[in-house]
């Protein structure tokens, strides 16, 4: 152990230098890294001040209300309500995917996961929008969503809030809240139900069997 006061002082000064240099290098590396975070951005907008959308704006096929909803599902619904976002169940999303409007851009799907996960498998025809790097795709996705009648945003599902963040990004970008929906079950639930999944780029035509 340090044997004298001067040793202790030297170690403390050394540690202070390590901390200062480390933090400086850390923030500089983040700045130059293509995956770096924007320090001034709020990645988790609460959106609590957004007024919830009136029920009449929900025009997709209604599903039976599950009175035995699990605590996790209830928590998810409450979370979306707090952010002024509308939730869709899996059967509603399936209906929308089969809807002819999903082929002419009036129903749009947005995948709010990172590019690697998107490439591994997404809802067929879904646009990619990583909410942590919106500068990459927002410019392309926003006009499409503005022109659409319904926009369905999803991520992994469950605790994943990336779909909320992406939906709020779109809403802040001018997409009316009335046509924005979040598929709470996300791709995990979608794949578990063996629903169609497209791999690679959007409209690549490559399908994979969901497991």
């Amino acid at each position, binding site marked *: 152990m*340090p044997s004298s006061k001067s040793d202790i002082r030297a170690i403390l000064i050394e*540690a202070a230098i390590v901390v200062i240099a*480390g933090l400086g290098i850390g923030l500089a590396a983040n700045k130059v890294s293509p995956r770096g*975070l924007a320090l001034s951005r709020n990645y988790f907008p609460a959106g609590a001040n957004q007024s919830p959308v009136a029920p009449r704006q929900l025009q997709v096929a209604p599903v039976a209300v599950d009175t035995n909803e699990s605590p996790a599902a209830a928590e998810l619904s409450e979370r979306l309500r707090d952010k002024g976002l509308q939730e869709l169940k899996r059967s509603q999303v399936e209906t929308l995917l089969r809807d002819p409007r999903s082929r002419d851009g009036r129903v749009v799907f947005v995948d709010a996961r990172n590019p690697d996960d998107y490439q591994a498998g997404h809802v067929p025809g879904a646009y990619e929008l990583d909410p942590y790097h919106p500068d990459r795709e927002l410019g392309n996705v926003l006009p499409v969503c503005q022109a659409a009648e319904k926009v369905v945003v999803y991520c992994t599902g469950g605790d994943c*809030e990336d779909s909320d963040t992406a939906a709020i990004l779109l809403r802040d970008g001018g997409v009316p809240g009335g046509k924005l929906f979040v598929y709470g079950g996300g791709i995990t639930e979608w794949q578990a139900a063996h629903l169609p999944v497209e791999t690679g780029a959007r409209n690549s035509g490559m399908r994979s069997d969901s497991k």
Partner: protein
Amino acid sequence: MTADQAMWRRKAFEAAAVLARWALGALFIYMGLKKAMHPEEFLKLTRQYEMVHSPFLLNAIAAGLPWFEAFCGALLLLGIAVRGTALTLVAVLVPFTWLVWRRALALQALRAIPFCAVKFDCGCGAGEVFICGKLAENILLILVSCWLLSGVGRAFCARHALFSGKSGKI
């Protein structure tokens, strides 16, 4: 014990310390870079601890800490400012271990399961881990850091100390 035996024991002890320094350094580089490759994932995990409420501070922690870890790992591996780095790691690991423990307690209460059955991604860079194993690992890392803080593992150091202390040991 003969003089030879004592010398060999000292050498073995020093070699173990050097290996411990390299292992600790390599581990921090690996964990740091793994997190730095996906800072948004680390940001989400950092947020779970509810340490800070300012988005700027949260982003700064999530953006800077992985690189900071890798930097400390590189210093240990190269043998630069070893004792200052070891002290820094102790100062980071102790509060982090407390945060992990506190979060595990909260999850245990929420899931109503035994403490050691709690499994979650603590943001350590190793994905989902069982809490008891994680706490044991962190305690081991703290002990190794304290050992290096005592001044061992000087062989193969580019510059073990940045400054010279009065005792001449530094």
